[in-house]
């Protein structure tokens, strides 16, 4: 049987960079192909070539036996390719139906070419039902949550009746139950004869649904795994080309007294819920929970972005009023935000100005910036954190995700951290850089810094934390000591099933 999609010797050269080199792969009808690789391995370039966004420098693309020398966006769509993107490409000023049927709107009125809204809704409703969506076709996209928007993206691919669907990190913002539903859907589509390429950093999903795995590294295909060979260790070995050493490094000494204590804290996101939290110096406190459980709001409240509605915050026993990030920074409480490009960095500024952004007055004499001192501080951080950049004058937007995150860290490390709140510290960062970030977190904890690590990555929560607390709908639903760590225990608490009494005993 002819493969649905066949790539032969695809290469792509950008000036000075060889992004892809001799990549050949094929996809059959009714098959799920897992595509893995670190960031920068060439996955997105390959997807851009398939989507017709950039032409390959060499190689052949055959879809359903037809050869396409120049695949444009329109040809790709016509050939039956559909994408579900990681970054959502939706018009949030239009409703759900309009987004799903964009470019294929049902018309009426003959030459007037009027939009037939009713027909559009009729057509979209069964697709939404199939996805188990809890919103109607006429809902404005602006009112949807990120997870719901992701479903709209998927519905769009379904509506196009695509033969080949490429899912690029489709679950990065979905909750556990939505992820499970998506995986079921992937299996349904496979049974219906659709070919799927599934790209993700979450290896568990690949184990769950892929029939075959191929791995890209440095623009080359470095290996493939058959169904029975697919397991975490094998995939990680392919991705980084070596064994990943055990994640957990125990602390150098037991956690100290004091640290950050919040009592009866009420955040704006859950006005009815009060919570208590204690982050001790010298420990990494992992915080798990479903998307929307209130973890980010808690971090924002502790950092003063959304001031608390009630409750007290103490640092090393002394009460602290945090009404703005300025107060938090002055007290040594720093936040490494979830969205580093928007909230962590000024992308157009050089590394040096990002590093000193929060501490600029420290480098000023009589209000005038002392540039040499600033440069020295930044170079110290660049060397210490091993930021891969030609110099501190390099602009942040030219760095990779992992190096950008290190610049955010450099900003706080160049000051006097007491408590650092990490919100999804390794999201979108490749495996190698992840290990470095974990090492840095441990080194900080050993220097007596209290660390909170909010993470949706189960492997990370279990592998890096000294202690875990879990949030559920705005409250702390329980805590776990290292001995009691398990995926099941965390999940039970995350969906609100843990008995609070026992959980508190574990936390004490």
């Amino acid at each position, binding site marked *: 049987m002819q493969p649905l999609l066949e790539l032969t010797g695809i290469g792509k050269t*950008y*000036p*000075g*960079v060889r992004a892809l080199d001799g990549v050949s792969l094929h996809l059959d009808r009714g098959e799920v192909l897992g595509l893995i690789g670190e960031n*920068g391995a060439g996955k997105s370039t390959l997807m851009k070539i398939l989507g017709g966004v950039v032409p390959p420098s060499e190689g052949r693309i055959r879809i359903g036996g037809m050869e396409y020398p120049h695949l444009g966006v329109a040809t790709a769509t016509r050939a039956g390719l559909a994408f579900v993107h990681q970054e959502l490409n939706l018009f949030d000023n239009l409703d759900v139906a309009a987004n799903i049927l964009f470019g294929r709107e049902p018309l009426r009125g003959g030459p007037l070419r009027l939009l037939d809204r009713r027909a559009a809704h009729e057509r979209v409703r069964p697709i939404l039902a199939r996805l188990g969506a809890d919103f109607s076709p006429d809902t404005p996209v602006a009112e949807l949550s990120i997870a719901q928007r992701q479903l709209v993206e998927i519905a769009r691919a379904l509506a196009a009746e695509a033969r080949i669907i490429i899912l690029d990190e489709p679950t990065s913002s979905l909750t556990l139950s939505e992820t499970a539903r998506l995986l079921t859907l992937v299996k349904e589509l496979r049974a219906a004869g659709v070919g799927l390429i599934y790209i993700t950093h979450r290896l568990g999903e690949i184990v769950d649904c892929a029939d075959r795995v191929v791995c890209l590294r*440095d623009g080359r295909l470095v290996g493939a795994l058959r169904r029975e060979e697919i397991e975490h260790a094998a995939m990680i070995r392919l991705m980084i080309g070596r064994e990943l050493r055990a994640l957990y490094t125990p602390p150098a000494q037991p956690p100290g007294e004091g640290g950050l204590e919040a009592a009866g804290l009420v955040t704006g996101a859950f006005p009815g819920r009060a919570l208590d939290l204690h982050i001790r110096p010298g420990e990494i406190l992992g915080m798990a929970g479903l998307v929307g459980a209130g973890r980010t709001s808690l971090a924002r409240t502790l*950092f003063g*972005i959304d001031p608390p509605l009630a409750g007290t915050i103490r640092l090393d026993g002394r009460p602290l009023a945090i009404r*703005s*990030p*300025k107060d*938090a*920074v*002055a007290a040594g409480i720093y*936040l490494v*935000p979830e969205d580093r490009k*928007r*909230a*962590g*960095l*000024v*992308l*157009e*500024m050089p590394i040096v*100005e990002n590093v000193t*952004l*929060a501490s*600029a*007055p420290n480098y*000023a004499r009589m*209000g*005038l*910036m002392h540039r040499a001192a600033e440069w020295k501080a930044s170079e110290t951080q660049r060397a210490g954190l091993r930021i*891969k*950049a*030609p110099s501190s004058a*390099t*602009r942040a937007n*030219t*760095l*990779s995700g992992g*190096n950008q995150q290190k610049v955010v860290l450099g*900003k706080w490390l160049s000051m006097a951290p007491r408590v650092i709140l990490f919100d999804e510290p390794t999201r979108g960062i490749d495996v190698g850089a992840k290990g470095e970030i974990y090492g840095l977190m441990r080194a900080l904890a050993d220097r007596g810094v209290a660390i909170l690590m909010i993470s949706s990555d189960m492997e990370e929560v279990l592998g890096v934390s000294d202690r875990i607390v879990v949030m559920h709908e705005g409250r702390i639903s329980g805590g776990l000591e290292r001995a009691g760590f398990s995926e099941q225990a965390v999940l039970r608490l995350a969906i609100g099933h843990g008995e609070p009494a026992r959980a508190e005993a574990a936390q004490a």
Partner: protein
Amino acid sequence: MSKKELGLAVLLIVIGGFTAILNPLFLSSVNLLNMANLIGLFGVFSIGQGLIIITGGIDLSVGSMFALLGVILVDLLVNYELPWPLAVLIIIGAGTTLGLLHGLLVTRLRLQPFVVTLCGLLIYRGIARYYTADSTMGFGYAGDIDTITWLASGRSFGIPNPFLFLVVVAAVMGVVLHRTVFGRYLYAVGRNDEAARHSGINADAVITGAYLLGGGLAGLATVLLVFYTSSVSPSSFGNFYELYAIAAAVLGGCSLRGGEGSILGIVLGTVLLQILQNLVNILGIPSSLNFAVMGGVILLGVIADQQLGRRKQKAQLQRSQALAAAE
């Protein structure tokens, strides 16, 4: 001097040289002094406009502010017979206060700068015309204004005083913008106010500060402009001046998206605009084409700047990627 400013300076010299060859009168001292005077007048408030644009905002109200503050200045000097230092201080204070008001409306009520200052443009012009019943105000037989007249429109060492004011303002604001913590914050907030807030910077105070400085400079410019024309007709005084200021700032490298621009660039932008105006006169181009020439040159400048910027960005991206790949 950045490449952008260097490019602008080269453009200035080329256009100036071209004009001088076609009509040597361009370099006559009368013409040069006249231009210097106008550059001084427009440069002072263009710098204020530039500071606001760097925060990602805009100030459409300066032209009307000149009319309102202008009639008040004449009134204070002629009818209330205030001593001139006091009158000047009141005008600069009033400009600062209006700037503060704009800043608070933008940061506290989260109104868009365009809307706030568009309303300012309409309101201040309206009040100025109502206050004077639409009649032109002049100094007539006003008392002791010789000193301020000399200060605002005379010459020192043969150089027009407004130009000297601009040199001082540019030097001070250059230090403020490029050397102080406030200046650093201004760029950071203009580029990404979210990241600035997340670094503990009081972004609202920084933005308000820019409007405040812009208002104060508009107050100073009012004094210079009033003594340049020596009368204020409230319906036309300062008309379109906000657009000259925006044009100078954009020509000088400020991006309306915020976070970009320099004092030197803004000054060079002002100089280029005045040369263009002068060139239209001196080369006998129909003066009705004045605006079209200005618009055309700004458009070309912005296109050239954007193309160069894109190339630079690409080169830097490649350097870091090559380094990351080499690891």
